[in-house]
């Protein structure tokens, strides 16, 4: 993975001291609340319902075991012994003391981690494919490009006070595992007819109050022009994006109001003016960054191992876990393993300090010291030798990270909701637990197959409910939590926005409503058809009739 140079390190250390000074001046009454709010958000610090919340960046979801241990240590030393992994591959601490945040950041800087631009109206941390580098159909590894973008965006002097937050995701595979079509900018590595690698650029996707799928504004951008093109998009947005209404301030609103063609024309005109500037990426820089992402030293004889096949035949539970929680790897004899951070009745995405340390140890032992976070709030060991799968499964089972539910409705994405977040309108964690309780028959889950369930506690849609096959949105009705259901969304390469099923329902009715939805699917599906495909084929009516039948 990328290793900081002296300059990279100096920058994050100076940023820590700058933030320490800003916080000190705020506490001394020298910076007004509203101004400090903006400054702290640019450094990942929210003031939440119970305490501040610090979001630390995990750039494109890549962590070393050393970094994960440092996160565990932070949770012990400054927080309540756990951390929450988010839908943009980052990590949050829910209970730090404001005065100690600079110390936390100083500790994290020692392991090349920071909170720069993990929040606020600026260019946020860049996300990417959690299977980058190990899937067969990839154009090339997208992570060096995500790192190049990270550096360009870090403390960019022109774009620190944008109309609204700005999120970029980069992928290079035909399968979209980073929800690029619902990002402000989606960058896809592609090959043109001449076989050259460049980028397809999407703009104006997003969720929140006005969900939209991004528009393609460029089919092929040469590699060396990546930063000039991004800068052109950001400049057009910075100058023309709305600032009078925060709900209309995202770039998606600008793209929609101008029309994608007119928006593209503005970007292209700006780009022509800056294309031949110092933004043109030197090949030496591209090569330098790529050099940090070598292929690990795989065992070329991995596939010759016979123990794996024996264990598969002998232990059904292991075979089930392999089937649900692991995927093919481009190298024969290796698999990529998902660590399901969806322990029974625990908050999705939460790991304790003990689990983090243990995962770091396992990463050292089996996975070249590497850990990845996913936008489904799980972790991935991307390079597991098939002979190591069985002992790894045993170790993960002990840690509560091997529930064989990946891809099922039990593998739900969920924001912290009313329990922690000051924006939330409704509770989410309790509902998630009820859903898990209600659907704990694994055979039934497997029969249902791949279903993405996503639940947000408010319209800001941190859990991406609009693009869940089943989306649940918490709303407040006279002080009580109600839930609106949507069906048919997807964040993958076939991106679509879910449609609202009907009027919102009380919390106690959520599991029963889900059961009716799933029963309708089982009734309606044709052979081998996934849930999302059935919804697309038959439409919402059959589901609607079943869920709201008792109300008639």
């Amino acid at each position: 993975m990328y290793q900081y140079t002296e300059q990279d390190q100096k920058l994050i250390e100076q940023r820590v001291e700058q933030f320490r000074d800003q916080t000190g001046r705020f506490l001394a009454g020298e910076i007004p609340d509203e101004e400090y709010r903006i400054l702290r958000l640019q450094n990942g610090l929210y003031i939440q319902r119970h305490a501040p919340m610090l979001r630390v960046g995990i750039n494109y979801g890549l962590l070393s075991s050393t970094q994960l241990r440092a996160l565990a240590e932070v949770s012990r030393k400054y927080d309540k012994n756990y951390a929450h992994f988010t839908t943009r591959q980052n990590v949050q601490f829910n209970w730090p003391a404001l005065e100690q945040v600079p110390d936390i950041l100083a500790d994290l800087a020692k392991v090349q981690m920071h909170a720069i631009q993990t929040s606020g109206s600026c260019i946020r941390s860049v996300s990417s494919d959690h299977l980058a580098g190990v899937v067969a159909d990839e154009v090339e590894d997208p992570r060096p490009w995500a790192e190049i973008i990270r550096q360009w965006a870090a403390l960019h002097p022109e774009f620190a006070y944008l109309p609204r937050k700005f999120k970029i995701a980069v992928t290079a595979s035909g399968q979209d595992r980073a929800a690029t079509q619902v990002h402000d900018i989606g960058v896809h590595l592609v090959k043109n007819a001449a076989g050259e690698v460049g980028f397809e650029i999407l703009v104006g996707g997003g969720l929140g109050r006005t969900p939209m799928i991004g528009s393609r504004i460029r089919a092929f951008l040469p590699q060396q022009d990546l930063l000039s093109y991004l800068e052109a998009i950001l400049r057009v947005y910075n100058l023309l994006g709305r600032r009078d209404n925060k709900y209309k301030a995202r770039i998606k609103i600008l793209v929609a109001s101008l029309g994608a063609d007119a928006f593209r024309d503005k970007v292209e005109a700006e780009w022509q003016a800056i294309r031949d500037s110092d933004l043109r990426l030197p090949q030496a820089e591209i090569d330098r960054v790529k050099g940090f992402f070598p292929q690990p030293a795989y065992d070329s004889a991995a596939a010759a191992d016979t123990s794996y096949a024996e264990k598969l035949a002998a232990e059904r539970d292991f075979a089930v876990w392999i089937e649900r929680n692991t995927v093919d790897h481009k190298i024969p004899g290796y698999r990529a393993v998902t660590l399901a951070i969806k322990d029974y009745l625990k908050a999705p995405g939460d790991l304790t300090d003990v689990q983090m340390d243990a995962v770091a140890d396992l990463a050292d032992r089996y996975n070249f010291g590497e850990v990845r976070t996913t936008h489904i709030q799980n972790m991935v060991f991307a390079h597991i030798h098939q002979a190591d799968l069985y002992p790894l499964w045993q170790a993960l089972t002990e840690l509560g990270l091997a529930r064989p539910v990946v891809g099922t409705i039990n593998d739900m994405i969920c924001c912290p909701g009313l329990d922690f977040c000051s924006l939330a309108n409704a509770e989410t964690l309790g509902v998630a637990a009820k859903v898990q309780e209600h659907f704990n028959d694994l055979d039934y889950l497997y029969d249902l197959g791949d279903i993405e369930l996503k639940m947000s506690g408010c319209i800001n849609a941190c859990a991406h409910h609009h693009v869940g096959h089943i989306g649940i949105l918490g709303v407040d009705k006279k002080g009580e939590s109600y839930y609106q259901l949507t069906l048919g969304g997807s964040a993958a390469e076939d991106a679509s926005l879910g449609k609202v099923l009907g009027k919102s329902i009380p919390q106690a009715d959520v599991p029963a409503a889900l059961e009716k939805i799933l029963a309708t699917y089982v009734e309606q599906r044709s052979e081998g058809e996934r849930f999302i495909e059935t919804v697309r084929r038959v439409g919402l009516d059959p589901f609607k009739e079943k869920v709201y039948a008792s109300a008639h």
Partner: protein
Amino acid sequence: MPLLINQQLVEHDSWQRADEAADFSSAAIPAQVDLLVSWDQWQRARDVLLARGGRLGVLIPNDLDLAQLAGDLPRLALVAIDFPSFADGRGFSLARLLRQRYGFTGQVRASGDVTWDRLRFMQRCGFDAMEIDAKRFTPAMLQAFSEISVSYQGAADGIAPLYQH
């Protein structure tokens, strides 16, 4: 109002802000002072102002399309850009465009909500002058320019992107 030029506090501001009610059609225009007028005044009395002897500056709103001013830039010695609030970052882009697109070499001054924590970004984007509200001014704020010494990107301050070093 405390004024920083080239990262230093200066004692004297040679620029005089024109009275908002000033009537430039009369002979009352001060001839030899450095005169800073608002965008409205500039639009109303451009020709009279240009016929005057002393140096001219215009304070522009941050939603201005610079193309409207481009042809007159050679006649201006100062362009001041208004920052209406701490959260509004349009002025950063305008300053870069003035310097890098339009080649403006006069003074580019940040005016309005200008405080410690944006000075470095302003300087990087091409502002060489910043007006600070007296209530928010402290000599210590000059350290803003040296808090971070690493720049990944190029901007309008002549520093090349890190990848070109």
